[in-house]
């Protein structure tokens, strides 16, 4: 896979912006990372100073926020200018241990991905902690303790409980559908990007160049489309929902699949109600056995039929921890997909113009590493946030 089509290190790599001598494995003498770090530092510090609990407390920081952004942007321009003459054919290699003779960019990409892994590990461990540490809302609901403690939406304090998104998403095949289709879309896209790399790397002469161009841009274009599908379905699942028509021979009845937000699964949610076919039998038994404690509950009962109770009482619940962990984790993953789409847009255009050859196919390989990582994270997000 690696190391077949890269130039050597004895190569003058000219740059319009400062020293940039790659000879004999010289390091990339650039000020750009330091300038960007300073800019990002100023930006983060001033943002943190400007706001407190969602309210602006120091308007004087606003110009500094923009200053930080401008310095970061300036650093990026320097970086880009230094590498603008870099056509991707020349590939510097590490000279020291332990990465001797491995492409520097490849090692850097792996380092980056590992730092990303730590970011997602933090999100996962947070989710695990809260998932295991807080009582599930459904358990509290079924126990009936919220009635006894007057934790109803009309009269009391909220119960602090955990409501996993899977309680809504895994409640029917149609609710699972967007997430499941997304999972398949990401796996297919991992396959298509590998195929794009394979075609780009085929040795000159072994394949017609026009065939190479078409194959590479079609595979990259397919990856782009699949990434768009992924984000679109995520928006449908979060905000839009979808409509199921009446299809008699499949036994489908006309109904709407409601989005997570419309189901009330938001960071502002203040109550809990069980979803999709949950039966209130346990609570009915408790209520029947302890009528005095369940006075308020009985006051709200709409009907008792066949041992099941229907009630208008609403359990006041604080589920913001559940929704935050879900939306932050899946949203961070979605942001990575979005960044991937930006990269894929450029790469597909470049492939369309016949820009990929065996000599610079490593660019697809490095992007592919990122894209597979995004798939890898989804392999963990999907079962533990969507299914369980």
């Amino acid at each position, binding site marked *: 896979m690696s190391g077949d089509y890269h130039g050597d290190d004895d190569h003058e790599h000219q740059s319009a912006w400062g020293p940039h001598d790659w000879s004999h494995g010289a390091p990339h003498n650039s000020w750009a990372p330091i300038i960007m770090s300073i800019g990002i530092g100023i930006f983060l510090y001033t943002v943190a100073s400007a706001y407190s609990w969602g309210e602006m407390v120091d308007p004087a920081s606003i110009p500094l926020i923009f200053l930080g952004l401008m310095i970061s942007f300036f650093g990026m321009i320097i970086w880009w200018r230094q590498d603008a003459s870099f056509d991707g054919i020349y590939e510097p290699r590490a000279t020291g241990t332990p990465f001797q003779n491995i492409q520097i960019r490849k090692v850097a990409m792996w380092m980056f991905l*590992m730092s990303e892994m730590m970011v997602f590990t933090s999100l996962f461990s947070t989710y*695990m902690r809260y998932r295991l*540490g807080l009582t599930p809302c459904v358990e509290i609901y079924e126990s009936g303790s919220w009635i006894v403690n007057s934790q109803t939406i009309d009269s009391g304090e909220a119960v*602090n409980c955990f409501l996993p998104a899977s309680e809504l998403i895994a409640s029917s095949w149609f609710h699972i559908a967007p997430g499941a289709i997304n999972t398949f879309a990401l*796996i297919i896209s991992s396959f298509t990007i590998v195929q794009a790399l394979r075609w780009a790397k085929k040795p000159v002469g072994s394949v017609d160049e026009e065939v190479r161009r078409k194959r590479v841009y079609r595979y990259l274009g397919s990856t782009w489309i699949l990434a768009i599908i992924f984000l679109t379905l995520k928006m449908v699942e979060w905000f839009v929902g979808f409509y199921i028509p009446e299809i008699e021979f499949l036994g489908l009845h006309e109904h709407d699949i409601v989005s997570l937000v419309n189901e009330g699964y938001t960071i502002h949610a203040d109550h809990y109600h069980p979803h999709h076919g949950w039966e209130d039998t346990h609570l009915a038994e408790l209520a029947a056995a302890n009528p005095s404690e369940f006075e308020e509950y009985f006051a709200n009962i709409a009907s008792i039929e066949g041992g099941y109770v229907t009630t208008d009482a609403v359990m006041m619940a604080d589920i913001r921890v559940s929704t935050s962990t879900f939306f932050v984790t899946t949203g961070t993953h979605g942001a990575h997909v979005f960044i991937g789409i930006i990269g894929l847009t450029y790469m597909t255009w470049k492939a369309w113009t016949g820009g990929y050859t065996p000599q610079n196919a490593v660019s697809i390989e490095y992007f592919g590493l990122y894209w597979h990582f995004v798939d890898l994270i989804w*392999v963990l997000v999907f079962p533990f946030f969507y299914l369980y």
Partner: protein
Amino acid sequence: MSEHKIFGQDIYWANFIGLMVLTAIEVVAVGSEFSKAMTLFILVGIAIPKFIMIAAIFMHLWGDKDSKILTLTALFPTFFIIVMVLFIGLTHPEATTGLPEWCRPGYYKL
């Protein structure tokens, strides 16, 4: 890597089919009437091989001449992951209730 075969099939194609099948099993398992513990067991049991298949074959951590050192690089954050998952995610039961009030769920001051 690309010249490798699995069951006589192109390695990327075989890996792709394997991942699709495992994902289908995952979805069906959730739709089936298993207990929570069994469902979790199945999901973990499927996620691990999927994770390895993507890393080893699609990300070329297996079969390339520099796979070994890159695999070690990929394993570098393992210590951090173990600390996070084991000592924050799975233990320290008071993390959600025993911390100072401002650090607990429910304290938003919004």
